[in-house]
């Protein structure tokens, strides 16, 4: 909604995947997000940036209804994926989360084998008819996460035995194994070293060709490297949303400028 009059935004060529309108989020009496309106495009990497406590992770966790598991959390407004409001009564959050995958800040593989980690999602959703098809899903997911070559000989060793970067890519493989339409990433590289980070970033670039990726990051360099769209959050509000290039070179809001030049945050 901020960029419709800019020619380089090229909105018309890509479909809107997620559209949020008038979203309010409360944790108990405290309001974490105020009047949020945003439209996230399909097959695009959208970065959420902003200082700590600005609500970017909170909003991310609204997109797959992870906040439902927090007793005190309350979400108002409308978040629609492909036009369907995910907070409608008829929407099952469990099924939604298979469609909207999530990768967390700290790599959190299950304490099971690599194979079981990836096959868990497809198994509980009944995506494979037999063992051969499951093998195929696991291989595709691991290839999709650029991990196949490193682990193909030890699929039945524990996933927790991998290095930090490999664990995070395993978590990405686990998320993409259920063939999601949106992948949410909550600071996926904050626990990784620079080499593992660059591997994950390359992976994000590939994943973009298949679905919409939303990434929360504390690193503005990372947002600039991986995303096409950037949203800047401050104190629970969406301050500015637009093409990543514009946000970092020609911010329109003084708060955005202050943040990217390191004066707030």
């Amino acid at each position, binding site marked *: 909604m901020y960029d419709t009059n800019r020619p380089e935004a090229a909105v018309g060529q890509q479909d809107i995947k997620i559209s949020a309108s008038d979203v309010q989020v409360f944790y108990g009496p405290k309001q974490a997000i105020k009047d949020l309106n945003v439209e996230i495009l399909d097959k695009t990497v959208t970065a959420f940036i902003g200082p700590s406590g600005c609500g970017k992770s909170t909003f991310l966790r609204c997109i*797959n209804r*992870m906040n439902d*598991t927090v*007793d005190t959390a309350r979400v108002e407004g409308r978040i629609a994926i492909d036009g369907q409001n995910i907070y409608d009564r008829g929407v099952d959050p*469990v*099924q*939604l*989360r*298979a*469609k909207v*995958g*999530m*990768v*967390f800040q*700290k790599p*959190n*593989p*299950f*304490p099971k084998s690599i194979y079981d980690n990836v096959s*868990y*999602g497809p198994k*509980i*959703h009944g995506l494979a008819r037999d063992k051969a098809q499951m093998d195929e899903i696991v291989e595709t997911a691991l290839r999709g996460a650029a991990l196949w070559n490193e682990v193909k000989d030890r699929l039945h060793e524990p996933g*927790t035995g991998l290095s930090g970067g490999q664990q995070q890519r395993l*978590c990405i493989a*686990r*998320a993409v*194994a*259920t063939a999601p339409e949106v992948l949410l990433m909550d600071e996926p590289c904050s626990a990784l070293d620079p080499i593992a980070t660059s591997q994950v970033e390359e992976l994000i670039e590939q994943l973009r060709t298949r679905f919409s990726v939303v990434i929360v990051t504390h690193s503005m360099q990372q947002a600039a490297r991986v995303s096409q769209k950037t949203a800047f959050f401050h104190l629970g509000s969406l301050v500015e949303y637009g093409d990543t290039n514009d946000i970092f070179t020609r911010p329109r809001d003084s708060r955005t400028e202050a943040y990217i030049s390191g004066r707030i945050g």
Partner: protein
Amino acid sequence: MTDLPDNGRASDTAWSSDAFKNRLARRHRKELGLKLLGLGALTLAFLMLGILLWTLISGGAQAFRQTHVTLDVPISAQMVDPADPAAGNYRGVIAEAMQATFPDAPQERMRALSGILSNAAQFVLRDRVVADPELIGQVVQIRVPTSDTYDQLNKGNVNEASDESTRRLNDEDIRAFRQLEAEGRITLPFNWALFTNADSRFPELAGLRGAIIGSFYALLVCFLISFPLGIGAAIYLEEFAPKNKISDIIEVNINNLAAVPSVVFGLLGLAVFLNWFGMQRSAPFVGGLVLALMTLPTIIIATRAALKAVPPSIREAALGVGASKQQVVFGHVLPLAMPGILTGTIIGLAQALGETAPLLLIGMNAFVTSAPGTPFDASTALPTQIFIWADSPERGFVARTSAAILVLLGFLVLMNAIAIFLRNRFERRW
């Protein structure tokens, strides 16, 4: 520090000033004091443990061996009818054998001489003959326990120098026993009867079989009831129940229940299970029910702690791929919490094993001379058997009390060792 002079040398002297040295020395003294205090407490605890174990072992060690007499017994067809060996006069057979062993003894001494043998002698012989009727007409060698007074004599617990009238054995009795000893008929083997016999009026025959089986049945019932119930309650409270006033009240009450004295649970069992439901008195099944009530809060608390210790990242990971709450709990959280749950359960059961008061109230301190065949037969348990024996004045029972305590402690150590093993073996890192 604000009054430090601002040149470097003066600051050096401040660090080595007397006031600073005193402060340092005081701090070191305090640390040493704390260390010594801890060491002292530890030493005291070990000393107490040492005294306890020494008392038990020195008092109970003798009960693990039992004096036996080896006798040659001719079994004649007059005494034992080959057609019905079970109905034979084995008492007479034993008396004849004693007469043959002491050919010079006058008739009036025979009764006292038969007292060397335990009452069990005739039954040992009967069982041998019933199992093998071919023995009738032959001379059979049997090894039977001596009665408790002679057992004590053999173990050196009788002061032979003291006045004859103050002892239970007179000089003639002792001479007869020494004669058997000289003939090589007296042995002191391991007291298997302590584990293979149930309780008895005679200390030399009394064993723990009934108590061990009774305790086993009671613990089995306790486990089968409290383990699934406790885990179910903990999972509901921890994972599904809404956090509100009611769940707070439940939590406080569970913690209070864990601290309720066990005798109260015994009274509850007496009132509800025995008087109201009319269940069998002294039965391990009822004992198990009462112990289950007592163990339940322990298991719930341990399970909740174990569930809480599972990192939230695992729950999020499972929820994130679209697992339902039930799939998260049973597929991920519960398996990770299992080692902690098992440890808590075993410690709860170990507590239940040593619990005496509730079992006394439901009558598990009855005098039962046969081991229970089912959990519904009257029986004792290990702690109540200790209680019964501790009440008996015979020297043999005093030693057996200590021995029974050692057996109970052995089981407790074993259970705790299993708990530690399970924790180390199945504890997973993430």
